[in-house]
């Protein structure tokens, strides 16, 4: 207050001094008068302050009004165009799909990651034979095939009159060239078809593959990257674009945002012809951003949706929520070369002590228990959850035998990537504590995990989602980071590969998987069942295996009126 008085007093003082100068000219006197008048009218206790308030208030209101107005306008206009962009049947000509994982580039011959297979195979690139949502082999570029009795020669008969999206003809030459290049340049997953010797074009419609040894997985692997057919006469920027024979072409791609597909006008087939003109796949790594995008209609499909956040959509009749089977296995691997973990009792303890039901419940209760290395969608699957049921007493007993207890715990470190969230590690820590295991969690970036655990094999416990299907070979390859070396399993796996019928192969695989599970080189926490949510009116989005097989040609959206 004193300051206020001072300021006022100073103004008054000015006036007084000037008034005392009686010799002042008339105009000076008039300034005095006006000053005096203003000083009065600007009485700080009344008129002065509120005016400032008023101005700021008016400015704020004006800005808000402007913003809201402008945006209502644009919103309406945008909705107008959206509404207009439908074809006669009411079906939208654009479908937007939200996925969580983005491929960093489109170089499917070099870059790892199932995100790449998910969006490109069957959509932009096509393989010799195709994979269905049942995880089985179906006709692809080849309409039929024969396998010789000894399992060493595969003869494929191609569909007639096929072409790439640039107009180039696709014939047996392109098929043979693509497969031979894979072997020669050691492209991604070339080692999956290591038994393949060469591919030849017999005539323009027939391709013959020669194997060095029978391989019961060969056809299935040819549905994936090893079987993709590229245009041998074309070049394109493989990291930013894609040129294939599929029902869609890539219009634009930005790994941080979206990939835009346009129906391929020159598509050769009728069966897989695109039903929707444009498909936009948005990459939404943040769970909440994904939910918001689905709610606000920016995407019509969200895959996957975090199961614990799907509740409101389940209750809402405007949405459909489904969970499907997949090949994702959350593997808690035990380093078999580690001194502490080479003791089988310790490994068994962890398997008995882990409460899978609780883990699954906390993740939303849709995932499935998995007791062994083979997921339910793969050949050789058996329910192995009974091998090590949750049994704390048994776990405690085994720990006692191994020489540990809660007061003298075994120290172990779990290294896992931060993409899976902290909850899993915390749950394991608290489940293992009463058994006598003090679990330290090393929560790292995925690239760090790749280097330390996967490449260097430097870890005690590791947790990762092995998404691939048909990947039992990892348990038969001792230098894989599991370091699991069991001659019996390797022999059984070799027999499974050499088998000439699917039944025989499955039998050997199941036998091998059971031995692996009993040996406890890992605990399989659960098989991730992917939950998807989509707006009512979306048709054709696959329920199963959508993380690896996503046939966009069949997806349509008909907005409800």
């Amino acid at each position, binding site marked *: *207050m004193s300051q206020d008085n001072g*300021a006022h007093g*100073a*103004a008054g003082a*000015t006036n007084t001094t000037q008034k005392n100068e009686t010799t002042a000219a008339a105009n000076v006197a008039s*300034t005095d008068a006006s*000053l005096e008048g*203003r000083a009065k009218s*600007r009485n*700080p206790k009344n008129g*002065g302050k509120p005016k*400032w308030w008023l101005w*700021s208030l008016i*400015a704020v209101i004006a*800005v808000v009004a402007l*913003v*809201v107005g*402008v*945006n*209502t306008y*644009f*919103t309406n*206009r945008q909705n107008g165009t959206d509404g207009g962009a439908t074809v006669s049947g009411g079906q939208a000509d654009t479908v937007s799909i939200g996925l969580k994982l983005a491929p*960093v*580039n489109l170089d499917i011959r*070099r*870059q*790892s990651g199932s995100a790449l297979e998910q969006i490109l195979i069957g959509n932009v690139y096509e393989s010799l034979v195709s994979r269905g949502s049942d995880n089985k082999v179906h006709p692809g570029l080849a309409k039929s095939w024969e396998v010789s009795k000894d399992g060493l020669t595969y003869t494929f008969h191609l569909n007639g009159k096929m072409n790439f999206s640039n107009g180039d003809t696709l014939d047996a030459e392109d098929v043979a060239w693509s497969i031979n290049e894979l072997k020669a340049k*050691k492209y991604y997953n070339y*080692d999956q078809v290591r038994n393949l010797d060469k591919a030849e074009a017999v005539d323009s419609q027939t391709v013959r593959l020669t194997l060095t040894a029978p391989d019961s997985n060969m056809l299935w692997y040819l549905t994936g990257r090893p079987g993709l057919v590229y245009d041998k006469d074309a070049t394109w*920027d*493989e*990291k*930013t674009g894609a040129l294939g024979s599929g029902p869609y072409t890539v219009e634009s791609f*930005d*790994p*941080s*945002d*979206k990939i835009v597909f346009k129906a391929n006008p020159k598509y050769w087939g009728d069966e897989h012809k695109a039903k929707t003109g444009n498909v*936009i796949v*948005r990459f*939404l790594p*943040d769970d909440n*951003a994904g939910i*918001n*995008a689905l709610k*606000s*209609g*920016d995407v019509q499909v969200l895959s996957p949706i975090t199961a614990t956040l799907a509740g409101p959509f389940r209750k809402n009749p405007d949405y459909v929520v489904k969970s499907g089977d997949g090949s994702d296995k959350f593997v808690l691997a035990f380093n078999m070369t580690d001194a502490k973990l080479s003791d089988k009792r310790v490994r068994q303890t962890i398997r008995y002590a882990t409460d899978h039901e609780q883990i699954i419940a906390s993740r939303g209760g849709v995932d499935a228990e998995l007791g062994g290395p083979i997921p339910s969608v793969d050949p050789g699957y058996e329910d192995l959850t009974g091998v090590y049921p949750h049994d704390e007493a048994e776990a405690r007993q085994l720990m006692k035998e191994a020489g540990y207890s809660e007061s003298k715990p075994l120290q172990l470190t779990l290294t896992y990537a931060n993409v899976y969230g902290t909850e899993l590690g915390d749950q394991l820590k608290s489940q293992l504590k009463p058994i006598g295991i003090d679990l330290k969690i090393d929560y790292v*970036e*995925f*690239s*760090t995990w*790749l*280097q*330390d655990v*996967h*490449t260097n094999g430097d870890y005690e416990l590791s947790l990762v989602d*092995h998404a*691939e299907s048909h990947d039992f070979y990892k348990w038969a390859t001792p230098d894989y980071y599991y370091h699991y070396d069991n001659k019996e399993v390797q022999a059984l796996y070799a027999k499974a590969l050499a088998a000439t019928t699917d039944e025989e192969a499955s039998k050997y695989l199941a036998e091998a998987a059971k031995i692996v599970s009993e040996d406890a080189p890992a605990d399989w926490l659960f098989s991730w069942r992917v939950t998807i949510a989509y707006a009512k009116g979306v048709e054709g989005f696959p329920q199963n295996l959508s993380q690896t097989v996503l046939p966009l040609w069949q997806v349509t959206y008909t907005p409800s009126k």
Partner: protein
Amino acid sequence: MRFVVKRLLLFAAALFGVSVLVFAALRILPGDVAVVMAGTNATASRVAALRAEFGLDRPYVVQYLDWAGGLLHGDLGMSALTGRPVATQVGTRAAVTFPLIILGLVIALAIGLPLGCAAVITRSPRLRGFFHVLAIAGGAVPALWSGLLLLLLFGRGIGVLGVLPSQGFPTDGWSAPGRAFASLILPALATGIVAAAGIMRYTRAALEDIAADGGPVDMAMACGMTRTQALLGVGLRLAAPQLVSVAGLTFASMITGVMVVENLFALPGLGALLVGDVGNRDLVAVQSELFLLAAFFLTLGLAVDLAHRALDPRLADDKEDR
């Protein structure tokens, strides 16, 4: 003039230091782009082949010289993963981030400056208290939270008043200026409101200092201005250099600050780019991006310093006297 030359030399030296520091710091990270590219099915020989392809098997000094040599030619290098020039990548992302920051700063100034002035001009202790609390509360709100609240209020399809787009940037970018601008409003408000509190505090402090100092403001009032006129006409003018510094700093801190907001609103900005590239160990891209950011911070500092001297001639006299 000497000041400008000295300042520029310092700028160049700092850039060199930054380049070495950035390069060295990134080599400490475990893993590299070859391992990431090869993935979980890879054999050791495949990783080694990729490493050779990217030149990662060469000594660090050679790799540094290679990169720094490129920088001198204005070549930021190519991203090993995406196969696009780093400059293009930064350019497309900056087209989202910079308009966002500028819009945020404009909002911050539009709110912070008037409120800061009002806090000094008002004489009611109650109002002063209110402004004080407002500044503290505003500064304490995390941008993530204000962003969520704004989404719940205005986000289309989510909010009570669903008028503004809540997610992403339009497919065609700035070629649809209206929609591009609309998609930036909520994120800009989320960052702007928080920054406004800071600007408000600084404005109040700077103005109060000048008012308490007595001299100029009292003199202005002695010459016939009212207190409000004196504070706004003379006080604010004197506070300008300080406020320019603060605005510059706010701008700089927003570059990193908007990363969270970009994530929340799924905007393809610089933050997402940087986080993604570090995660993928695309080190050539990361070091070029960090270098660019550092260069930008330094340029901003330079611009603020030069602006000071333009705004306050007394500064120039002081220096030259010395």
